[in-house]
């Protein structure tokens, strides 16, 4: 049916808004900060490296938010996982064991979040906020706030500082997770179940979808991805510290929403989240190049988040009318 094709081509402004903003911001920075090295290959790759953790967690964040949920534990999970991994490496020097325990820890936290939200009916915001504090507190407690250095060079190469040719491993990990995330979200039944659950939970249930399981799975993904983010923090900074990922939950939410995922669920874009995340990294980078103080950076960052979400919301409203 040719008619169905034409419909596909209708431009959905809200969905693509992130790319327009992205390109626009990039051009502005290229012109304004080109002389300060914004366009240097090194600088651009640096941006990708610095945003890798947020980007990867935002993959799972898209699933969580498309299902109409929210996960505030991701930053704390990253920190706690970094602590666990560094301690295991310190004791056993086994990368496999450290990796397995770290990811399983994250997944378990996700399971607890999911069960709190579905079985006990807690609002996701509150359940994960409480969990966040418990996990962050534990990360401080486990070594009494002391950092745990990592001496395993292989670990740090694979999960942080290494590179394959000119491409840093962090960028490779990011690409890998995005490929998995895009396939899962766009191509599998699970992706549709996520969207249906977020779009209309009652209808999804009436269609035979186990919405509880769908939501729990999204939280488990989020926990596991956050744990992997923590592993990358540990690898890049060659130590475990309780303070990693402070505020990452907010950066992830911003990246996901700027990327075109609705906070109320039902729509979402994984690749959009990547652009959302890099957009924020780019802004960060530009503000540093522009010699803004960290106080000024914080203000500008906040303003840009508000602005880009507002712009895409206006686009969305226009479409509805």
């Amino acid at each position, binding site marked *: *049916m040719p008619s*169905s094709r034409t419909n596909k081509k209708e431009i959905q402004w809200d969905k693509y808004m992130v790319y327009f903003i992205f390109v626009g911001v990039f051009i502005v920075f290229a012109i304004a900060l080109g002389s300060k090295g914004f366009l240097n290959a090194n600088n651009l790759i640096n941006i990708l490296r610095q945003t890798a953790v947020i980007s990867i967690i935002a993959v799972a964040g898209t699933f969580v938010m498309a299902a109409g949920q929210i996960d505030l534990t991701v930053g704390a999970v990253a920190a706690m996982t970094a602590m666990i991994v560094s301690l295991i490496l310190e004791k056993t020097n086994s990368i496999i064991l450290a990796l397995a325990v770290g990811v399983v820890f994250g997944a378990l936290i996700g399971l607890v979040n999911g069960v709190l939200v579905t079985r006990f009916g807690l609002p996701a915001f509150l359940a994960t906020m409480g969990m966040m504090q418990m996990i962050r507190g534990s990360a401080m407690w486990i070594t009494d706030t002391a950092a745990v250095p990592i001496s395993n060079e292989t670990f740090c190469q694979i999960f942080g500082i290494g590179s394959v040719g000119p491409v840093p491993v962090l960028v490779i990990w990011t690409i890998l997770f995005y490929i998995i995330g895009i396939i899962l979200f766009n191509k599998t*039944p699970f992706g549709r179940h996520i969207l249906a659950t977020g*779009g209309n939970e009652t*209808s*999804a*249930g*009436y269609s035979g*979808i186990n919405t509880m399981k769908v939501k729990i799975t999204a939280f488990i993904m989020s926990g596991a991805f956050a744990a992997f983010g923590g592993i990358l923090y540990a690898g890049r900074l060659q130590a475990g510290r309780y303070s990693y990922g402070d505020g990452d939950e907010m950066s992830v939410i911003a990246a996901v929403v700027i990327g075109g995922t609705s906070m109320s669920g*039902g729509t979402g874009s994984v690749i959009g989240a990547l652009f959302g995340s890099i957009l924020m990294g780019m802004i960060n980078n530009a503000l540093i190049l522009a010699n803004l103080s960290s106080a000024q950076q914080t203000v500008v960052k906040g303003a840009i988040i508000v602005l880009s979400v507002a712009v895409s919301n206006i686009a969305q409203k226009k479409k509805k009318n």
Partner: protein
Amino acid sequence: MSEFVLEMKGIEKAFAVPVLKGVDFSLKAGEVHALVGGNGAGKSTLMKIMTGVYSKDAGDILINGEAVSIQSIHDAGKYGIAMIFQELSLIQTMSVAENIFLGEEVTKNGLRDTAYMNRRAKEVLDNLGINVDPGTVVSSLSVGMSQMVEIAKAVSKNAKILVLDEPTASLSDSETEHLFKLIADLKEKGVSMVYISHRMNEILKIADSITILRDGVIAHTGSVKDIDLDKIIMHMLGDNRGNRFHWVEREYNKEAPDLLTVEHMKINDKLTDISFSLKPGEILGFAGLMGSGRTEILETLFGIRKMLGGTVKINGAPVSIRNTRDSIKSGFALIPEDRRKQGLVLIHSVKENAILPKITKLTRGILVDEKTADHMVEENVRNLGVVTDGIHKRINLLSGGNQQKIVVAKWLNMQPEIIMLDEPTAGVDIGAKAEIIELIRRVADEGKGVLFVSSELTELMAICDRIIVLYDGRIIRSLSRKDIKAEEELQYAIQQDK
């Protein structure tokens, strides 16, 4: 001064097709005026014009003999007209007194004067004989009590004309009695009431006047003293007694073993013992008033409500239905009552909605086979004559009838053995209605079993092979379609008390 508190003259209203064609309606002071008519006769449209929800295309509204303009619910309130909604409009988390004073909070030094408002609310409630503490949170009240609080709220704002829309639909017998007492009290205080109901016994008991609407015109208006159930039904049906959709006697093997057997099914305190059976190729209808338990039976078979007792057998073998997945696996499908809330994901496309239940099977490896899915939905669109620009169009942009066809399609794609439909033609235009009815016949002709719930008797009469009549949670009759001579008989059966 006019004898009437409210007069509506020559009211006309059309939504694509004319719904009201020059309707006159007059209400005397202190009377209970019943408004009766089949589904789609125009009752609720008339009341929505009176309460300012809709604007009229033509006609006049007079209050105490003076022409007025009612453009909004706010205007209606100014003239003392208030509607008590079927879905209660109280705020569940606030107290009775807070609800009564909502929007008109009394303050002292800029702060809410809770003590005064509670005292004043108590006076209002006492005055109406409603026995509830004004500090009680509304969510902890029964449906009946909430409704009375809503009435009290309207009265406290000096409402002189109340519209009650099926007020007893979800009330118990004692709550109904209580409500009738309140209505009698209000009458004495000079409040006029329009009483919409399908329950003729209630109307004959409490109403003073009656107006019967049929297809957008007044079929009869007069005193309740001069009318009985026979005449009401006669006026409601008029000349077009079930002729809108013709009944065609269908062939199916009546001797075949049961496809579905339900024995002693218990759902709640009201529906305690439901038994019936269904043959392959049979269309079994459920008739009954709102709240008689029709929807609950379907929802239980679909695993949405818990079955508290009894057995369900398919082809003679007992099945256990703990959730919707179990039910679907057993071969059930449900086209639910509320298309928008239960049937569809409105923000998603035609395609996404049509493939949703089947998507786990529409795969190649672990990936969704989009091509096969597209083909399936395009075929759905063709076969069911769905009017849409394409399968990727957002479903909320389609008309009600086309949306409903997609809900039906999404379940036909699952190839169920037993298809349950709950008011499938509600909010659907007449053309699509006929198509949906034809579709159900076609599905049954393929040997599937159909359970069909509808408030439109004409429709039940047109399509069902057998009709089960429910009253207050009990099956009181099981009629073979052949034995029903006219729609009147079915209407009597539904109204039957005890």
